[in-house]
């Protein structure tokens, strides 16, 4: 499934746009602390001040620099997406491969478990745990990942079953290759595109949920996040804060979600139209 993939990706406009957006976001994240002249938790400025050379995007109601808040908020949202995306993908890949390789009871048990997990509305579990225990964002991300792996696991399992019976694996087996050798050297590299698709769709879901949950006020209020900024800014909608306070976090959030959406869409299109993951 890799043949010509690189060439197809390089000419796919969605992929190019997605990569460009990811690059911009990466620069914002890495250079964030340098670009933000002020500390995002510094509350010593004139509240609701208009944009000026000191505060490029003005000051919020709590006397904090909005640009600094924004730059730190992007970092937090992306970190949440990465933690959930990577963990969910790793769990999904391992379980998918285990199911495909061993089959039988293990496969049956894990697949029924994933059916149950797919049926449970994960956002509700997140709301419940966040409201009751106020865990750190990282542990919330891990909880989300623990519920989000079944989609990837099923896609990996289905494809691994196909590969398992293909000629080159049979040949490897004939030559006496062990199970672990075949899995790590033959199957894992071949399934590589699926990892990317799994990661992109999980990261998209995670960032979307992070923004929604922080908008609803379920995260620690001292943790800067885009959703929380939108929530606070909406309370002052009658003031002239639309362009400097409300729009920047919305724009950043949209760009973030667009970047992963475009990447996931183009990867799916290029690698296999039948391997579509769920949005």
């Amino acid at each position, binding site marked *: 499934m890799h043949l010509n993939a690189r060439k197809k990706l390089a000419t796919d406009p*969605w992929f190019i746009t997605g990569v460009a957006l990811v690059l911009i976001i990466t620069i914002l994240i890495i250079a964030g602390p340098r670009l933000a002249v002020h500390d995002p938790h510094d509350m010593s400025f004139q509240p609701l001040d208009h944009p000026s050379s000191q505060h490029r995007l003005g000051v919020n109601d709590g006397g904090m620099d909005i640009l600094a808040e924004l730059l730190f908020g992007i970092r937090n949202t992306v970190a949440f997406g990465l933690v959930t995306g990577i963990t969910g993908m790793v769990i999904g890949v391992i379980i998918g491969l285990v199911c495909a390789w061993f089959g039988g009871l293990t496969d049956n048990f894990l697949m*029924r478990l994933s*059916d*149950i*997990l*797919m*049926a*449970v*509305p*994960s*956002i*509700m*579990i997140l*709301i*419940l*745990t966040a*409201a*009751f*225990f106020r865990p750190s964002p990282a542990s919330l991300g891990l909880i989300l990942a623990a519920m989000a792996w079944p*989609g990837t696991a099923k896609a990996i399992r289905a494809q691994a079953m196909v590969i398992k019976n293909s000629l080159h694996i049979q040949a490897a087996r004939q030559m006496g290759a062990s199970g672990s050798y075949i899995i790590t050297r033959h199957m894992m590299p071949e399934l590589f595109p699926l990892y990317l698709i799994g990661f992109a769709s999980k990261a998209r*879901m995670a960032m*979307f*949920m992070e*923004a*929604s949950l922080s*908008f*609803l*006020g*379920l995260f620690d209020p001292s943790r800067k996040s885009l*959703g929380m900024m*939108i929530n606070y800014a*909406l309370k002052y*909608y009658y003031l002239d804060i*639309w362009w400097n306070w*409300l729009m920047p976090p*919305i*724009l950043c*959030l*949209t760009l973030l*979600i*667009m*970047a992963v*959406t*475009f990447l996931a*869409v183009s990867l799916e299109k290029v690698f296999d*139209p*039948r391997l*579509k993951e*769920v*949005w």
Partner: protein
Amino acid sequence: MNNSSRKQYIPAYILAGLVMLAASYSLPRWLPGDFVTAMYSNSHVTLTENQELELRAYYTQRPNFGRYLLDFFTFNWGYSYAFLTPISGLIAGALPWTLLLMGTAHVLSMVFGFIAGVEAAWRRGAMIEKAGVGSMTILQGVPELGIGVILLLFFAFHLEWFPAAGGETAYVNYTTGRWVLDLSHHLALPLVTLFLAYFPGNFLLARGSMVMVLGQQYLETARAKGLPPIRIRYAHAARNALLPMVTRFGLRIAFMVTGVLVVETIYAYPGLGTLLFNAIAMRDLPLIQAIVLFSSLVVLFVNLCLEFVYGLLDPRVKHAS
């Protein structure tokens, strides 16, 4: 896709429901602190030792799981700390609004998304199809939060065409006709937001599955028989393209519920989402718990019903059983 084994999902939904019930039953016991300290330590009421003991005994009594289930299914959900009324009443008051908003948005986006997707697949490669797929992919990258706030800014504040908050005009007596008009006036913005959020997914999914169906041989047969294109499209092809939409619905519902929560909060629409938002803001744990449990069970129930719809739609499933 393994169509013949869809029956496996039915026990999964029931088990998932039990998991939710068990989680919601046991989570509060792991909470640190207790209700009496939380409620009275900062208040002006000073409790005597006896009163405190009694209150503590009252609030730490835990029904066993059977009793809990019985209470839950008889709508005996306790009292909200913040609103000081029975929780079941609060939920019953908010539920119709959410159903109205989410149901309408879902049905509209499903129907229009499906038709648009089928038509797009039929015109594959044409300019209009490419433009449609492109713009829908872009729209899929815009979160509800963004669409909602932008529509609010534009249509409620700048143009003042639509009200910015609420589900109906308060304290007025309208005739039924005027009331429906008022209702739809308030519904318009949240509905459009949700529609724009759900539509791209439905459109792209319908187009994708239709493209795959169109490649199959039985459509050649239909064409060779000289059937009119519209009949081939809808009676032969679209029927099979509908199946993935139903299967994916259950998986997309988590996104949909999140979307409703956010959109209702933005427009202060008096549904479950706004109720949950207020409950979170006031740390009203029993209410949060009841809303979460209730809506997850509804989601599971809808999924379960869809399994039966799926059986009806796909003759292969019907014959396999």
